[in-house]
Structure formats: C-alpha cells, structure tokens
C-alpha cells in the first residue's frame, strides 16, 4: 500500500466512524496536547485551541526525541509555545570521524517558539481551523507551518485534517503550491524566517481522536513529518510508517498521560499538566473573617454620640490610632498615620498580607466604622507601599453601614467610591509612633538554576537566602540580602563563542560558582511622591549581583489613566565575581537608563516599552506584552533589539524571553502577597541586558492603580 493509499484508507475509516458511531450524550471532549505541547493529535497539530488563559507544561519522548513544552493560551484564539527539544544519538552516525560543526553534540538541543491562531471556531457544520507557525524564530530545524481543521463529529469523536509545510510537509508531499522554500542563512538563529513560511513541499496530515470514556481517549494519526534529519540523515530512529497510535489517560483535571506507538518503530510517552491561572482551584479565597461593620446609633435617638467636641480632645488621634490597630490585629495591615476632622478621617496604611489591595481597603474601612466617632462620615483610605501613597479611596461611612449585607454590596459600594490621586495627609496628621524604625528579616531556602547548557541542560544550586530590611522613616529603606549555596552542580564552562561585548550577563555562571556566599544586594533607597501623580526613587549601593552604583527614577502615573511614563538613569560599575564588595575585576563602568511607557490595554492585557541604553552600552528598545489576571498571575513575553549586530550578539541574535509571575495565594487558597517570578530566556547574552533594580516604581504602585483596584474590587467585602 502506498502512503497516499494509507492516508485515503485512514480517511475511509474516519468516514465509517462518522456513519456508524452513535452519539451518546456526555460532556464535550477536551482539547488535548500532542507530543510538541501544541493542541493536537499525537505528533501533529489540530485546529483546536485550549480554553482561554490555560497554561500547560508538557514532557514527551519517543525514541531519541525528547521535548519539554510550555504553552499559553494568550487569548481565546491565539496561543504560544516555548519548547526545549533534545535529540539524542545526534552524531552517532558521524562522530567519529566527523565531529565538526553540529556533530560535536551527541545530544542536540534546540529551543523553539510556536505561535498559532484559530481563524475559524467550530460551528454546527464548519470545523475549527487553526493556522500555525512552528519554531518560527529558531534555527529552523523544527520549522514548519500548518493549517489544520478539526470537527467534532459526535461527542466522542473528533476528526482532524491539515496541510503542512516545512517539517510538516516533509513526508509524501503533493508538491509546492506556493513555490520553493527559500534557503535562508540561519546565522545565529533567532531571526524570523518569514521568507520560508508556507513555501516548499506541502503534505497532508490528519487523524482521529475517540473518547472511550471520561478517562481514556484513543488517537490515530497520519503524520506528514518524515524526520528527514533525525531518521533519514542521522539514523537516530527508523521511520517505518507514517501512522501513529496512541492511548491517553486523563488522570484528573490537571494531569494527562499518553502512551504511543510512533512511526512503526518507537514507543512514545507524554505527560501534560494543565493549569487555569484565571481560576484559583479553591474558588473564593480563604483566611480569617473580618470584623463586622459597626453601624452608628441614629442621630435622633442618640444626639450625644454625634457630638463633634471630641476633635478638640488632646491625644484623641493616638487613641484612635491604637484602636484601629487593635481592630486590625491579625490582618497584617499596619496603620502608617491618621488625620481627622470633625466629619472626616484619613487613614494611611500598608498591607503586608492580602494579595488584593481591595481586601485590605475593606478591612480598614470596617475597622474605621468600629472606631471613629459618629460624626466622622467621610473615610479616606490611602494604601501605602515603600513609604509612598499609591492612591486614595474616598467612601461614605453610611454607604459602608448600608451595603454590608446588600446582595450586590461590592457594586453598590464601588459606584459610590472615589478613587483619586493620593494627595497629601490631612493637616495635623499623626504618624504611628510604633512603626519607625522598623526592622524585618527573613531566612529562607533558596535555589538558583542554570539552564540550557548543552552539556547539562538543567543545573541547580540549593542553599539559603538571608534578607533584611530596615526602614528608618517613611520611604527611607536600607536593605540587603546574602545567599549561600550548599549543594550545587552549576558549572562555569569556557564558552566557545565568547561574547565580544562586555560580559555583563554571559559571566553569570562565574558569579554562580565563585560567589559563595554572595552579597546579592546591599542598598539604601528613598521613595517619595514628588507632586500629584509624580513619584521618585533613588537607590544606591550594590543593586544586583553583577552591578553596583546609583539608580534614579521618576514616574508619572496619573491615577485616572490607564498608562504611565517613567524615566530612569543609572551609573553603575560591574561587581567582582566573588560576590563581595569589589569592582576591580572588570573595571567596567557604564551609564545606562531608559524611558519607559506602561499601558494597560484593557481585558487584562498589558504592554511596556523601554527605550534606552543597556548595560553593554548598546542602545535599543524592549517590548514586553503580558496578560495580567485578576488574581495576580501575569504571563508575558519580551523582546529587546539593540544596535548590537546579530553576529556580535551571538547565538539567538537578540534578547527575548518569557516571564511568569505566580501568586502563591493561588496555590495556598489563603491570602499572601508573595509572588514567585520566573524569567525564561532561551539564551542569556550580553546585548539588550537591563540593570536589575529591586522595586521599580511602577511595580511598587501597580496594585493601587484604578484598573487593578477595579479588577479585584470584589475582595473589598471579603
């Protein structure tokens, strides 16, 4: 049977299944992942996408092919994949004797980015259709493009058919519908190979997914990937047949396992983990109940309680401050200052506990309802962070009393709350006498990783980090951290293609191995609100592991707008790799800085543009796009292009990566402000490297933007 005949036969089977299978009513089949971490069949993609916002991690292997993928559903129709591929027995047929070029690797590692867009969602008669680019900025080894259509035939059966190009058009091609595929010089990789897209040989692929029951799914596919390089040229495995078979098991909502028979010769495995960042698994967040609102007595019945003479009493603010603190015990909310008039009170506070600023606002408002004399009708709540006021929420006490138990309490309160510029404290405001100076410290387990080294792709160091913070006055912060790795397999190899730029980042592994213990940071910082909507920061000292110096920033952030602009200037010197306080090893000084624009695009999408001079002295811009979930998850990607040529930049051609901010409250189901940040850079080079200063102004103040307060407003009554 020829391969084309096989494909036709497969379609026949599909058609038969179409006709004969009954349609039992049950939940819709969930879209599953293929071995490349894309939504798809076994080795082929499909026309489907995952549900909006889903994040999946996938590990697969068959024969010599290992893949680890991270996939994000950027919008309902758009998705992206980052994949790390390992091809074993890469040089077995060549080395020795030919161990030059890529043949030096016995396992060849490659990093891929894919992007796919669903041009048609599934309808009653029309299939879901997705157009995708695979490995579209890589070295091109895995590059392929496709259009795939998937139709749910009945609740148990889905059928996919598609056309592939590049790698996905390499088996049993029917021709070159859009002309030959240009031969591009991949150079250092990392460029968009757009001249190749949808060109060259094209081939059909397809398959079926049949849901046996809620847990088990069977898959059969016809693959259009010939594995020309891996199977044909390098003999890593034997491609005997284009037909792949699979059986998948949905263990629970998160984990899915698959077992496959691939290309007539190999066994394959797949395990995927699916998370929905948008929804905390526990639903509503836990944590202690608030103190209830204490309504005032009516003025008619108890006019004495409504007297305003209390405002004249000496020491009344200190008493009220103390009572507020008692009413906020165990909330992690700390009162910074209190100002009062006969009918209004302004409380400035910091929130050390709640991942949603609005929950802290609601707790303070209720505490005020319990503490403030009856004549105080206007509550001004000013959340503070790093000693500066983020914004001001103005509420009527009678609204808090009236709406506590109304069915739509949150909306009722929001439409009556002003969110305005933070302003200045009321005249005569008194600070919390117990707050400054304030020392906090922590000693926590600490890990460091070095990834994507072909010799050992995942290197890990484990140890401890000690961090301390001493706040002398509002906004005046002395802080530092020291790390020590006890257990580490991180290596510091001499790179064959050492960067011609100053080694501002490419010596990271030298710091990893030499600096133990490592004085990570040791800084003094000052934060202040300079004028309405204008904030300033000055940080000096050992700013990050590799650089020390001075950093100054000014941010203009109109609270009523969905954008902000900032400017930052730094003068820094490169630190010694021993993790101590010297600067002699490199004798490198640089003035670096950026103009930054921040844009809340609505719908949870966020953009940031930074234009300026980077650490190696190169000039350019960074574009960061991210999706910000209401519960604190933030998933994004960035790319930096500077005036460093691709040759001088080295492998990867320009700096790019993926960022994840993961709120631990999502995992715990109880409030905490701790967020884990992760940056995945396929290749860390010296071009386009930005100084890492802790707590830049926009990040510090972001929680108090009107848009973020609105996104989390439901928590105000929690």
């Amino acid at each position: 049977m020829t391969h084309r005949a096989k494909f036709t036969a497969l379609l026949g089977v599909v058609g038969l299944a179409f006709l004969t299978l009954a349609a039992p009513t049950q939940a819709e089949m969930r879209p599953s992942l293929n071995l490349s971490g894309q939504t798809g069949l076994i080795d082929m993609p499909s026309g489907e996408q995952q549900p909006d916002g889903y994040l999946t991690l996938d590990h697969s292997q068959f024969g010599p092919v290992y893949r680890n993928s991270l996939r994000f559903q950027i919008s309902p129709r758009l998705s992206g994949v980052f994949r790390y591929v390992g091809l074993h027995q890469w040089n077995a047929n060549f080395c020795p004797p030919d161990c030059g070029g890529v043949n030096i690797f016995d396992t060849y590692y490659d990093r891929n980015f894919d992007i796919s867009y669903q041009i048609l969602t599934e309808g009653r008669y029309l299939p879901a259709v997705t157009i995708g680019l695979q490995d579209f900025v890589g070295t091109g080894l895995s590059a392929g493009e496709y259009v795939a259509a998937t139709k749910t035939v009945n609740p148990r059966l889905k059928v996919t058919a598609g056309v592939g190009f590049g790698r996905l058009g390499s088996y049993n091609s029917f021709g070159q519908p859009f002309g030959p595929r240009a031969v591009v010089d991949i150079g250092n990789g990392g460029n968009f190979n757009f001249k190749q897209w949808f060109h060259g040989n094209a081939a059909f692929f397809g398959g079926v997914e049949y849901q046996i029951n809620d847990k088990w799914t069977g898959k059969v596919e016809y693959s259009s990937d010939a594995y020309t390089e891996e199977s044909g040229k390098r003999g890593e495995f034997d491609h005997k047949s284009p037909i792949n078979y699979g059986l998948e098991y949905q263990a629970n909502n998160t984990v899915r396992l698959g077992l496959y028979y691939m290309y007539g010769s190999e066994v394959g495995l797949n395990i995927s983990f699916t998370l929905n960042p948008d929804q905390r698994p526990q639903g509503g967040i836990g944590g202690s109940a608030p103190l209830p609102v204490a309504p005032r007595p009516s003025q008619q019945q108890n006019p004495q309680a409504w007297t305003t003479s209390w405002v004249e009493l000496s020491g009344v603010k200190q008493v009220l401050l103390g009572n507020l603190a008692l009413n906020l015990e165990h909330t992690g909310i700390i009162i910074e200052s209190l100002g009062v008039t006969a009918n209004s009170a302004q409380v400035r506070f910091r929130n050390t506990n709640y991942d949603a600023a609005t929950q802290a606002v609601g707790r303070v408002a209720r505490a005020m309802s319990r503490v403030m004399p009856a004549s105080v009708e206007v509550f001004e709540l000013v959340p503070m962070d790093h000693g500066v006021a983020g914004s001001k929420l103005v509420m009527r006490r009678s609204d808090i009393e009236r709406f506590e138990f109304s069915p739509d309490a949150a909306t009722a309160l929001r439409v009556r709350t002003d969110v305005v510029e933070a302003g200045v404290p009321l005249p005569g405001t008194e600070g919390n006498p117990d707050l400054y100076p304030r020392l906090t410290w922590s000693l926590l387990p600490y890990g460091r990783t070095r990834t994507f080294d072909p010799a050992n792709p995942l290197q890990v160091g484990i140890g401890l980090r000690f961090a301390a913070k001493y706040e002398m006055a509002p906004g005046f912060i002395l802080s530092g951290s020291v790390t020590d790795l006890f257990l580490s397999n991180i290596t510091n190899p001499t790179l064959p293609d050492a960067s011609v730029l100053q080694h501002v980042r490419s010596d990271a592994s030298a710091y990893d191995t030499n600096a133990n213990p490592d004085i990570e940071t040791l800084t003094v910082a000052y934060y202040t609100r300079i004028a309405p909507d204008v904030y300033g920061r000055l940080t000096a000292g050992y700013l990050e592991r590799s650089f020390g110096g001075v950093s100054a920033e000014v941010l203009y952030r109109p609270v009523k707008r969905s954008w902000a602009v900032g400017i930052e200037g730094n003068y820094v010197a490169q630190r010694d790799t021993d993790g101590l306080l010297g600067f002699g090893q490199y004798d490198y000084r640089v003035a670096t800085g950026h103009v930054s624009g921040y844009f809340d695009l609505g719908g949870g999408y966020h953009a940031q543009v930074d234009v300026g001079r980077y650490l190696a002295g190169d000039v350019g811009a960074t574009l960061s796009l991210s999706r910000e979930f209401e519960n604190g998850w933030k998933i994004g990607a960035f790319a930096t292009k500077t005036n460093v040529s691709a040759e001088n930049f080295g492998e990867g051609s320009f700096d790019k990566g993926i960022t994840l901010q993961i709120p631990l409250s999502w995992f715990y189901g109880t409030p905490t402000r701790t967020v884990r940040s992760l940056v995945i850079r396929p290749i860390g080079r010296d071009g386009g490297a930005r100084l890492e200063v802790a707590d830049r102004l926009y990040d510090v103040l972001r929680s108090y933007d009107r848009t973020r307060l609105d996104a989390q407003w439901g928590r105000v009554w929690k």
Partner: protein
Amino acid sequence: MGTCVEMKRTRTAAFAAILSLLALSACGTDPTARESKAALPTKDTLSAALSGIFSRKAPAVQDPVLVASTRAQLERLGNPAISVAVPKNGYFNFFGPYGQNGPVATWASSTLETVSLSDGILIATRGFGPDLMAARAPDIGQVRRATGYFHRGYSYLDGADQRQFIEYDCTFAPAGSESINVFAKTYVARKVVETCEGLDTSFENTYWFDNSGTLRQSDQRLSPQLPIMRLQRLVD
C-alpha cells in the same frame, strides 16, 4: 466618648467572639463592644474552659457525656450560642454574637469564621474560603408560613475574585413534624422545605421550627463548593 474609645482598646479581634459569649457590660453604641476590663478573663482560663470545643474543623462532638457537659457550659455562660457545621469539609464549631447591622446578626467562632443571619436565614459567611458573599433571601415569616415563591440571589467570588450572582426560583412547603436532637436537647419540630431551582442546579433548604416557633435548626445553601451548612440554635 473618650472613655468608650479607651475601652475599645482592650479588644482583640480573636477575643471578641469568646468575650461576647460572656454577657459583659455594654459600652456606648457598639453592640459588640460588651467587654470591660474588670470582667476580662484571660486567654488561658477561656481555653481551659472550652478546650476541645473551639478548634477548627473539630469533628462534631459525639460523646454524649461531653455533649451534655458542653451544653451545660454554654448555658452557664448564658449568652446566645449557635453551632455551625459544614458536612462537606467536616467543619464544626460554636459561634457567639459578633455584630448587628439592622436585621442582620453576625456570629463568630473563636477561629474567626463568621455567619451572618437575618432572623436565622443565612445572608453571608466569611472565613470558609468559598464564602457566600451576600444573598437576597426570604424573610422568616414566609418560611414559617411555608407558602409562596421567592426569587433568591446568591453572590459569590470565583477563583479570579470576580463576582458571580446566581439566581434561583424557590417555593416553600410544609413537611410535617419530627423530633430533632439539638446538642443534647430534643425538640419536636415542624419542618419546612424550600425547593430552589436555578439554571443548571437545584437544591433544598430545610428549616425546623420548635413549639415556640423558634427556628431551631436549618440546613441552608452556602456555596456551590460547600453546598450545605447546618445551623443549630443552642442557647437563646
């Protein structure tokens, strides 16, 4: 005013629930501010008196001797008390008065969960995780009459902290009488069943009224994740 402010300083959030069980002298205008320094018990004496009862997720007390002695203690304290159980996660605790806002009374446990009830009808919970944030609920008169319709609305926060409002059409019907055991005390109670139907779900709330007409026990909808909360009125 000044003195009252002074007195409020003695309160701690965790204490308030226990203190308010102890019928102390009232101060000023705050219905929950009922402690005074003189009558303040120490944390130790309280925990000794009530050990084993006020622990989070303690299983419902089974031992009849312990149940009886606990009831005796609660009655000796003399303040109103209710018990709250959530069968889904095994939660059980005693609650005392914690606040009053119009018709809605808030009750708290010593581990800082609260339920807010309007004449015994559940309006809100806090501290249970998937809480009932607020509700449009029938008044006790309609429940007692066991007739007619009510369009309920329940407000929740989902895992993205977004407000979800779920509506149900409810009807009431009498369901005879039965004998109920409320923590070592038996009542003959008139039973009323409220049947609610929403878009994809339906549930029942059940109410038991004793001879005096007091709502003695009820099973009420909490949230989709924690479907039922059992409330018992132990000490009036």
